[in-house]
């Protein structure tokens, strides 16, 4: 396989465009979340900066940039500085795996609408989401604060538990698509979305990604009623901003992956593929915000009980049932 200048330029252009779009989407997702939460609680969200508050993300960004960067006394310096990046980078890397459109043709060569199309893309996604645990754990541990440490220990336990159910819920998808490659998984759903064959796996995956994002029914690591802000209590300024933006990029990325695995990715009638993909991914983001506006926080023991005694057995049974289904019906 040989590369020439146009290939490299196309790859870099793709990366730059996707990076910009994702950052912009994450920034505006913050605004959308604040407005929607406001509407759910019958108030306006932020509406002061610019028309309808549309410049609010920029104002927030400037605020975070110019805030003082505080390092608590007795903190582990390098790990404290490293942890926000360790939380944000895996989220950005996950985005690079998602196929968000049909391959196009530039300069006479096909360009997949995806940064990399690995043959083990699905496993790489699980790998990155398991690496993201370190940002939470080290950030809380390095802060030298009780609340942060409690938050990070809780986060560790929660994230490794829900990773297992997430992985198990993706096994039926692999069995049906017969590939780990994300583009092939999307192609396998041309005729029927996997949510029709695998509603239980979809539900388990949905619950697991909400837990992976540490969003509200499962926001044990940062439970503000108990732990101030959990693992990022001691962070301020740009480092807090990295945690924050990482969380929202994670929401978009996991929403996009849920759309890819269960809702047919970019397949859809009438509209262009990229638009279909964005609609599906942002629908998941909306669902996350809606859940946050509705549900109370689970207790820690309820969370672990739910994962190990309900979700994991159900996911295993679902794999078994899918195996029998494929063996008997011979589908796929």
């Amino acid at each position, binding site marked *: 396989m040989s590369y020439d200048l146009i290939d490299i330029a196309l790859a870099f252009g793709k990366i730059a465009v996707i990076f910009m779009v994702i950052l912009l989407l994450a920034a505006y997702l913050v605004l959308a979340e604040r407005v929607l939460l406001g509407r759910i609680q019958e108030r306006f969200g932020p509406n002061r900066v610019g028309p309808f508050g549309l410049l609010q993300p920029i104002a927030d960004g400037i605020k975070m940039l110019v805030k003082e960067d505080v390092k608590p006394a007795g903190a582990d310096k390098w790990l404290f500085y490293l942890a926000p990046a360790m939380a944000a980078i895996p989220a950005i890397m996950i985005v690079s795996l998602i196929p968000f459109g049909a391959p196009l043709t530039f300069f006479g060569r096909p360009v997949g609408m995806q940064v990399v199309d690995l043959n*083990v893309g699905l*496993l*790489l996604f699980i*790998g990155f989401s398991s*690496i993201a645990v*370190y940002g939470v754990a080290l950030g809380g541990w390095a802060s030298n604060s009780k609340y942060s*440490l409690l938050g990070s220990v809780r986060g560790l336990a929660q*994230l*490794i538990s829900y990773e297992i159910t997430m*992985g198990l819920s993706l096994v039926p998808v692999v069995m049906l698509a017969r590939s780990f490659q994300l583009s092939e998984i999307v192609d396998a759903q041309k005729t029927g979305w996997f949510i029709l064959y695998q509603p239980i796996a979809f539900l388990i995956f949905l619950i697991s990604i909400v837990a992976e994002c540490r969003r509200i029914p499962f926001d044990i690591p940062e439970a503000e009623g108990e732990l101030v802000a959990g693992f990022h209590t001691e962070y301020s300024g740009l480092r807090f901003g990295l945690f924050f933006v990482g969380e929202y990029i994670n929401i978009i990325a996991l929403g996009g992956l849920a759309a890819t695995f269960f809702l047919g990715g970019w397949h859809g009638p009438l509209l262009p593929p990229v638009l279909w993909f964005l609609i599906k991914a942002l629908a998941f983001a909306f669902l996350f915000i809606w859940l946050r506006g509705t549900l109370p926080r689970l207790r820690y023991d309820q969370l672990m009980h739910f994962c190990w005694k309900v979700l994991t057995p159900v996911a295993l049974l679902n794999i078994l049932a899918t195996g029998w289904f494929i063996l008997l019906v011979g589908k796929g």
Partner: protein
Amino acid sequence: MEQALFYILATVTVVATILAIAEKHPVHAIVYLVTSFFSLAVIFYLLAAPLIAMFEVIIYAGAVMVLFMFVVMMLDLGNPGEAGRPTLRHCLPALLLAGITLVSLVLLVIGRGAEEGPDVLQVVSIRDFAATLFGRYGVAIEIISMQLLFAIVGALYLGRRRRP
């Protein structure tokens, strides 16, 4: 290019492992070790074993090391003074034994000569891997699953609630 990448990654692996061993602090050691395992995973990917590379990331970096970190944080083993810092008395025999082992291994490896086999371009695809795994090594799969089951039972037994 892959060759240069391999040597860079090998250097990163060895240096990170040395730092992990020399570090007095368990949490720092774990972070260095994760770096080492991550670059080892990329080496596996270069060696045309993408599945093993991914499982290295998921299981070693993502699960085993997280479990270590969880235990270190939960038991608060963070302070380096505790748990017997090694002295020179500990180090000397270790270094001696390690030196002997290393020299003999290197001699063994180099002594085999630089015989280079034919350039095998037959890459193992994931399908071949799965067919071999579940076909020829089916009994091994069963044994491993039994072992995991026993590990679960053992962990549950050790972690059971005792009467105070």
